[in-house]
């Protein structure tokens, strides 16, 4: 039976996954060389999640993540050199070097940031989804978080509201089995995170996060469900990080054998093998992609290294929005490219809010039945 996937789709996914892998390896190397400091959390091993999601949603859908956040913007089309420059703390970075590894923001590509407080983005995602509903837009919000974030209060508080108000948000728990050095099973009464959706009457499912095609299928379906106005979905992508929690983590809390076993599931060769077996692409084509990506990442490192540190004047900018100040468009600022895809919102005079969270007739009927007067 012929594959239902186009060659184009598979090669795009492969390119993205290989870019994430290569980029993160280089980031690790540069950390070792002292070019990157602070916390630096690598995505190596989890590439299938971000690549599968990206191909299954619209480019104008909102996305945000935790602090393991270099890879998702790359999948969205962010400039690798500018992400690397941010890691280097240089002015050519997406946030002028002010955010660093844990805070990548690329609003042009609708990537609304990496957040350093575990689970904090879960609340923000609900607000972004709320805004889409408020404006009658059909865009959805995709929010990544880790297994450990599911134990935060905000996870529960937000799921409750998201379901109650039918917010168009897809929550993807990237369960890589460890919250820093603590196996999720050691601290979770129910380690299958997606089952927590049950308590809120929320659609929930688990997906093999080491298989990009499974991710793609699951997200395509979930996105359609959400876009149709059915409310949020909780998806658990079971994945694995081949590296420590961050660069300073020797990962002594798991056995070498475990890592070896998981590497057999490496999503990148898996996709290559599938495509070759399905006769959708030849090995040479993959070699060529790999070569191109290697050069792209080398160029990104070079760009980052040559970008100057931010000027001290920057200290006094970007804390408070001054009267009449425009928002910064990074690619325009750094590369001089005209950015046309910057988000635009209807003004307060144009906007008509036409929906209700709790329609009045419904409330009045309920009151009447209960014998209440308003």
């Amino acid at each position: 039976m012929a594959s239902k996937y186009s060659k184009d789709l598979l090669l795009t996914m492969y390119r993205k996954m290989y870019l994430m892998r290569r980029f993160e390896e280089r980031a690790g190397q540069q950390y070792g060389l002292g070019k990157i400091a602070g916390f630096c959390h690598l995505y190596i091993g989890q590439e299938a999640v971000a690549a599968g999601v990206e191909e299954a949603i619209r480019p104008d859908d909102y996305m945000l993540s935790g602090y393991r956040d270099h890879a998702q913007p790359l999948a969205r089309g962010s400039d690798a050199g500018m992400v690397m420059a941010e890691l280097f703390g240089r002015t050519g970075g997406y946030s002028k070097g002010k955010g660093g590894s844990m805070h990548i923001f690329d609003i042009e590509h609708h990537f609304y940031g990496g957040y350093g407080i575990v689970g904090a983005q879960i609340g923000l995602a609900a607000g972004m989804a709320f805004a889409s509903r408020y404006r009658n837009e059909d865009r959805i919000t995709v929010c990544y978080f880790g297994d450990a974030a599911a134990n935060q209060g905000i996870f529960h508080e937000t799921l409750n509201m998201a379901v109650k108000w039918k917010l168009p948000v897809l929550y993807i728990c990237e369960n890589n089995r460890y919250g820093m050095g603590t196996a999720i099973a050691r601290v979770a009464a129910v380690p299958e995170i997606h089952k927590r959706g049950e308590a809120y009457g929320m659609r929930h499912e688990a997906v093999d996060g080491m298989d990009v095609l499974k991710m793609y299928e699951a997200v395509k379906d979930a996105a359609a469900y959400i876009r149709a106005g059915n409310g949020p979905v909780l998806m658990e992508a079971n994945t694995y990080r081949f590296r420590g929690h961050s660069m300073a983590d020797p990962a002594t809390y798991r056995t070498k054998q475990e890592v070896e076993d998981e590497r057999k599931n490496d999503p990148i060769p898996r996709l290559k093998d599938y495509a070759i077996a399905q006769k959708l692409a030849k090995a040479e084509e993959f070699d060529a992609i790999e070569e191109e990506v290697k050069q792209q990442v080398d160029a990104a490192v070079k760009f980052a290294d040559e970008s100057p540190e931010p000027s001290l004047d920057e200290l006094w900018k970007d804390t408070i929005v001054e009267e009449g100040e425009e928002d910064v468009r990074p690619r325009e600022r750094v590369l001089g490219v005209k950015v046309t895809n910057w988000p635009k919102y209807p003004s307060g005079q144009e906007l008509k809010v036409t929906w209700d969270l709790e329609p009045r007739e419904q409330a009045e009927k309920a009151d009447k039945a209960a014998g209440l007067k308003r």
Partner: protein
Amino acid sequence: MATPIQMPALSPTMTEGKIVKWLKKEGDKVSSGEAIAECETDKSNLEIEAYDDGYLLKIVVPEGEMAKVGSPIAILGAKGEKVDAGAAKAAAPAAAPKAEAPKAAAPAPAPAPASAPAPAAQPAAPAGGGDGIPVVMPALSPTMTEGKLVKWLKKEGDKVSSGQAIAEVETDKSNLEVEAYDDGVLARIVVQEGQMAKVGAPIAFLAGKGGAKAAAPAPAAAPQAAAPAPAPAPSAAPAPKAAAPAPTPGGRLRASPLAKRMARERGLDLSQVRGSGPHGRIVKSDIEKALTQAPAPAAARKAPAVAPGVRPEPKSVPVTTMRKVISQRMAEVKPGVPHFYLSVDVEMDAALKIREEAKALESKVSVNDIIVKASAMALRRYPKINVSLHGDTILHFETVDVGIAVAIEDGLITPIIRDADKKGLSAISAEARDLAERARKRGLKPDEYTGGSLTVSNLGMYGIDSFIAVINPPQAAILAVGSVSDKVVVRDGQMVVRKMMTVTLSGDHRVIDGAIGAEYLRELKNLLEHPMRLLF
């Protein structure tokens, strides 16, 4: 293309690492992301990964050896590629980022407890080796290069404690005390009373608490001392009392910041004001009250005792330090600084009236005080004179500080009246008297006679009509003031008698020109002839 694999920094504090084990051997194929070696850091054992695909051509650092972060530990390349001997060396550690922004260190995992306690640090050897702790001739004034030891306040064997005065030294300006900065015993005096010592040279040695024996003197520029006496054991007897220090002024003067500012602006002497606030704090209302009353007269001064006249015989006296400095500097200035001179005659009748008015208020204001005030106000208006040349730059002073030349035994000194343009006459008068008196007693602190905008040198009291003064560096001008005397002058075609005085300005032509000096003198003349203007 053979590329080096470098020892990575695997923790924020790691500077070098030990290769524990090679997981690949030479000739093995490695792919990016694969672990190739195990490394022991200061924190833990970690794996080193390859960041490229290729073959391990050469292992540079064998198992069990250390490598600095950034140095090559192996060479990676294509299959069968020859290793260039230089490639290993070429791998320089990464350059530091361009600016010196502090690196935020990632919190490292807690270090494992050390297996053994670190050895206690060796007690530090006492400074000065076997000589004990040297006490050196301090620089007690900005211009001092050497000092004369006038008197030892402690003798060998005495106990001294940090902060205690141990000797008196005569500098080019005044007599000052040398303090010990350590506790111990005065083991050996190197410079005897009456001898000179260069700044920085040891004048004595202290033995630490242990009473270390002082060894032979360090071959310094110090003069020959008598053979050192063995250090006596520290006696239980109390050390002789050091000379009593000059009494410090009584209790601190308390005034609110606002009161201090007002006094400064109106030239009021706060010591003459009674405070009504808590603990006698002077506040705004006290200043306002004081300004409407005459200041209390300053305590009467004792006239200096006149030395009895003796038939003079030529006597050879060694040049004092002060004299030496004066002669040195004058010799530098006179050929070194191109002087120009401007003179003007000033009618002093009105100014003398001011002095009479002050007398009526029991306030002593001298002609010189009025000249100081006027010269300061003129400086404020003509700041081009208020400068000083320092090499390639000209300092333009923001404050107006006027020096007054005071003749003292064996020389002269110029104490400074700070902010003279802002002070009132009675404040200037009180300050000038106090400074002159302490100058004669050699009791001035260095900051009281250094700096300044210009100096007023007045020889009027000696009946000198007019004279020319040598500039007092680093100032750029000096005002030579002659006596006030009745002269016949012509006013409106009539011959009249007026009190006249001649003022001569010497200017440093490198920074001031004649026209600027002339404008300044014109202003000064105006102020003195219309002294009401001194109030504005």
